[in-house]
């Protein structure tokens, strides 16, 4: 079981291609950060309803992992899904409009924060039941192998999901059948307010891979480049050898489990949150880019302004976008509208 070392003295990157890639990752992480801050603000104003789980602090995981995918690969994730949707290429407008429940949202306003989907990007959804989507990702991998393709199926889930049956059943079958799946366990330390040490019998969740003869690594999730490299190894294994990988990614959420709890809550201290903020994923990359001569203050200011405008635009768009038409209540239940029970069950009951 390899644990990726934190590369404090990573060598200087000089090629223009690398500089361009780093700029892209920095921008993506910044978009997610500012988007989530804006979403939190909108939630507090009552513009976003229901549950809203923010990704602040974990940006490098989604950006680094998805950077290693091809456009035809599949992604399945849980309810903390805004970051992955944006990293995959959904527009800020489409995601924000979905949070606002508008018809222009990526799921037509029917899914909301927890259920972001985009078939054109192979984004198989945000799912709301802890761990239940892990078998779905294995199913997409099964389909890839069945068709003889070389895509991969990537699944994100939180560390709390590693204790539920669906995780174990899916990983067992993925390994048993050599499915091209990659399981990314985003270990942010807490399942709601329950720390890993109070929920899991093993401290290193990557050890769970051993039970299923699955290669596994513990990865530093605050460094986008480390994340991408670990993911690249997993992608090769899936694409070339059709074998799954488990990546336990160490990360941290600065905010509460959802918008309904305080940033640090009763289960952790302010100091702990501050401690983690010192290795902020955006700063880690920005500092490296400055060292390499690919970023200066003016560049960072310009990027911030550009990202803020994108997010403000998404907010305005979402606010102004129309609600779904009332008749949308009954569409998309069945493939054909005749499939439903509406006439039978609701006639004149109102």
């Amino acid at each position, binding site marked *: 079981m390899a644990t990726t070392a934190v590369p404090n003295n990573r060598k200087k990157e000089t090629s223009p291609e690398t500089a361009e890639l780093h700029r892209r990752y920095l921008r993506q992480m910044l978009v997610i950060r500012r988007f989530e801050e804006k979403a939190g603000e909108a939630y507090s104003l009552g513009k976003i309803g229901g549950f809203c789980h923010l990704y602040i602090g974990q940006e490098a995981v989604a950006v680094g992992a998805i950077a290693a995918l091809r456009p035809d690969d599949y992604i399945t994730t849980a309810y903390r899904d805004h970051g992955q949707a944006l990293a995959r290429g959904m527009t800020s407008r489409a995601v924000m409009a979905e949070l606002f429940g508008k018809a222009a949202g990526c*799921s037509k306003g029917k899914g909301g924060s927890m259920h972001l989907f*985009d078939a054109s990007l192979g984004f198989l959804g945000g799912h709301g039941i802890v761990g*239940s989507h892990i078998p*779905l990702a294995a199913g997409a991998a*099964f*389909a890839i192998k*069945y068709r003889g393709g070389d895509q991969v199926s990537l699944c994100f889930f939180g560390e709390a999901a590693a204790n539920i049956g669906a995780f174990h059943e*899916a990983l*067992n079958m993925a390994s048993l059948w050599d499915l091209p799946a990659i399981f990314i366990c985003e270990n942010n330390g807490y399942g709601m307010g329950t720390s890993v040490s109070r929920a899991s019998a093993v401290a290193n969740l990557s050890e769970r891979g051993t039970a299923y003869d699955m290669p596994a690594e513990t990865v530093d999730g605050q460094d986008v480049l480390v994340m991408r490299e670990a993911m690249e190894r997993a992608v090769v294994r899936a694409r070339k050898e059709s074998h799954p990988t488990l990546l336990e990614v160490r990360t941290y959420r600065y905010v509460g489990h959802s918008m309904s709890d305080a940033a640090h809550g009763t289960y952790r201290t302010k100091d702990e949150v501050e401690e983690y903020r010192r290795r902020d994923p955006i700063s880690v990359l920005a500092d490296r880019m400055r060292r390499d001569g690919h970023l200066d203050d003016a560049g960072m200011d310009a990027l911030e302004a550009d990202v803020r405008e994108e997010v403000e635009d998404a907010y305005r768009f979402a606010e102004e976008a129309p609600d779904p038409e009332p008749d949308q209540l009954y569409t998309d239940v069945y493939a054909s509208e005749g499939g439903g029970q509406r006439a039978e069950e609701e*006639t004149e009951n109102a």
Partner: protein
Amino acid sequence: MAITTYRDALNQALREELTRDDRVFLMGEEVAEYDGAYKVSRGLLKEFGPKRIVDTPIAELGFAGIGVGAAMVGLRPVIEMMTWNFALLAIDQIVNAAAKIRYMSGGQFGCPIVFRGPGGSALQLAAQHSQAFESWYAHVPGLKVVMPGTPADAKGLLKSAIRDDDPIVFIEGEMLYNIKGEVPEEDYIIPIGKAEIKREGGDVTIICHSKTVGLALKAADELAGEDIAAEVVDLRTVRPLDREAILSSVAKTNRCVIAEEGWPFAGVGAQVVDLIQREAFDALDAPILRVTGADVPMPYNRQLEKAAKVDAARIVTAAKKVLYHGD
């Protein structure tokens, strides 16, 4: 026409659909090398190979979810539950995933999947292996619930289910696998959502599905001996209900009995009663009666079990009651 068992009719349906569409695969416990726990998949591994006839570990939640994921990206999985009792372990995937994917995704993803296997009461299998769950699934928008009562319906409906673009809960009668009947040899399908009048009659309507179809026909025979002409309406599909078939029969007979294996509270029959009282109130000459399984976990003891199950005699009694026969 060939005489075939319900089991072999299902086998034919699987074979024909596996041949017709290479996106179709069968997955479940003991479906391949063991030839099926109930032999519904007999011979399919030999014919189609392990890629398409897939044995799984005992992990209903996991392989049901694998089926849903595969369906979302374009395959047509048939997921066998060894029995519907075990599908309780997978109900999260059926209800929270399969039924809702289309809606949650704003119509971007469908879930063309069939969950199939035996359900209903068995023989002295006691409380955990002898129960009817159709009303649970029929409650859920996004699902269709199909329950054939004869070999011909079993084949035609399973073929329809596999071709359908929505998730289907296909509950076979555990006690029906050996029943025989005429099954057309040609390629045919029976539409989902269509009931069938299995026997015509003008005095009383008996609404039934799955195992109670045979019981209702037996009851109708007995009633005929007393000059009572019962009309037997086999729902075949529990959701969506064939509203027209139910209402037109009740309009003709003015009296109705509903027979099902499930428990009485919030059962399928309760839904049918709701429809009839709302749409055909004036046609009724008597309150509708329901004949259901007893409101208890299934007992093991043979005599107690008999008392807990629906049988033809209880249907006959109910039919006479709604006719005020002998009053």
